[in-house]
């Protein structure tokens, strides 16, 4: 993020304020909280997508498949830990969540590593082929999850101690959403810290600006990219796992549906920008919840309108990268 570039950050509070007159305070509070929580989860999923594009110009339409796999893996783990899920204590519930999220992140990170080697590596620098092959892989992944997990939706029970809500000024805020929001926020803080303070983060930021020059300085950007790809897909898997518990149900179509939202998020944020996609994710999460409440049929359209509006205001997204 560059100094002086604060206007985009105000978009989130402005949207919060703008929604208030359109509904009662209690509804507003509930919807805002779940919108922000949803946004944090979208950020978890989208952060990898934006870095993968930023660093190697790779448009990965299979990214949503990792979210979908993460959700299914979480559902499988969930089904095997009914004791922990139903236990009344917070610690047991968090343990179940950690097991589900950890398994999803590990498996998806590993799958991402393999996917980068087998598929992505062959289509560097060729956007049309990237789109064709990753859209194709998305379809294959969806079919694979039908084969593995069956055609029917899986359901997940809310962890016992997190299923209830805090009631604040008449508005209900589900406790699990706070956990999801905290996790997303922690991931954002950790990513920012790594990008801002570590050598590897510095090289990633430089590589996003000018990959060739980073290589001419002696850094192996491709090797770094494989690492970023694996971390990105692991975060997608983790996001999918949290989403599964958040939504309470997982279907084979989940990854495909979320792909649209995830690309909206990274385009709004500015392709390649982690902070930008964080803002984009919050905006999309809020809009989805507000419009879903006020005019449910328009929810998807509202996100497209949001994207169009942002791009009219800032053609390269909220926090565009400097490209040299």
């Amino acid at each position, binding site marked *: 993020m560059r100094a002086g570039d604060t206007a985009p950050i105000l978009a989130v509070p402005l949207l919060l304020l703008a929604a208030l007159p359109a509904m009662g305070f209690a509804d507003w509070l509930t919807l805002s909280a779940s919108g922000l929580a949803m946004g944090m989860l979208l950020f978890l999923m989208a952060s990898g997508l934006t870095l993968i594009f930023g660093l190697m110009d790779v448009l990965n339409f299979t990214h949503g498949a990792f979210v979908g796999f993460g959700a299914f893996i979480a559902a499988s783990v969930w089904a095997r830990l009914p004791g922990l899920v139903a236990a009344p204590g917070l610690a047991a519930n968090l343990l179940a969540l950690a097991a589900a999220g950890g398994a999803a992140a590990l498996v998806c990170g590993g799958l991402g590593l393999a996917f980068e080697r087998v598929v992505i590596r062959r289509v560097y620098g060729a956007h049309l082929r990237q789109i064709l092959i990753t859209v194709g892989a998305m379809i294959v992944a969806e079919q694979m999850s039908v084969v593995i997990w069956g055609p029917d939706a899986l359901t997940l029970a809310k962890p016992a101690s997190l299923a209830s809500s805090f009631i604040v000024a008449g508005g209900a805020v589900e406790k699990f959403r706070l956990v999801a929001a905290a996790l997303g926020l922690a991931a954002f803080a950790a990513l920012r810290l790594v990008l801002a303070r570590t*050598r590897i983060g510095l090289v990633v*930021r*430089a590589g996003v600006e000018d990959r060739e020059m980073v290589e001419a300085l002696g850094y192996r950007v491709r090797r770094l990219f494989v690492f970023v790809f694996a971390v990105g897909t692991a975060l997608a898997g983790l996001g999918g796992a949290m989403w599964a518990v958040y939504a309470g149900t997982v279907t084979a179509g989940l990854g495909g549906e979320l792909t649209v939202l995830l690309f909206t998020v990274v385009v709004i944020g500015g392709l390649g920008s982690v902070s930008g996609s964080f803002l984009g994710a919050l905006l999309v999460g809020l809009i989805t919840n507000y419009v879903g409440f006020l005019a449910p049929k328009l929810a998807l359209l509202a996100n497209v309108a949001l994207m169009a509006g942002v791009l009219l205001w800032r053609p390269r997204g909220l926090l565009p990268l400097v490209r040299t």
Partner: protein
Amino acid sequence: MADPALLRLAGVHTHIGRYHILHGVDLALGEGRLMMLLGRNGAGKTTTLRTVMGLWRASAGEIRFAGSALTALDPPAIARLGIAYVPETMGLFAGLSVRENLLLGTGPGGLAASRIEEVLTLFPVLREKWDLPAGALSGGQKQMLAIGRAMVETRRMLVVDEPSKGLAPGVIDQLIAALAALKAAGTTILLVEQNFAMAAALGDDVAVMDDGRIVHVGTMAALAADTALQVRLLGLHLGSHQ
């Protein structure tokens, strides 16, 4: 027998897409020497440097640096042999601070205080801009930063593409001082330059390119003394560019 040249190009051809740009470049640069690569616009100077760095692949010929065949290596491997490259566009990261840009020029040890001092002594203005993004610097300051980044770690060879382009004489003098200091420290330098004054102030050796080939090799002193040769090779003479 060991090659007396640190860098040697033999019969190097480079294609960019369908275009055949370098038509057999032969060049030898002795260790510790500073060679000026001159030539009119479009002669192939930048292409030669990019081919050395592996940013374009040579389609034929050989490039050897300190015993390694560069044609078999990718840019990071070439850089790790101890070659710093300052491209015509300077290659700075506009969104990163001056400090971060310098840091990227260092090895795993990070920025050594003594090296920072050296760079800041040569280019004091960078001290005030330390935490500003490189994109906020003036053209001259950017070039100082680009050269500074090539200095923060000991390199065997420095490859610089037209550092004086568009800069004021005072800034050019600072760049000359920096390159002279590097040379005094034993760094071998390959410098593309159109500014003949700068070339004359620094060069040991001269190579002149035209149309993708080396058309003249000699010492700077000989070229500086021979106005007729300057006019024939470069269409200018030493006095006209000062």
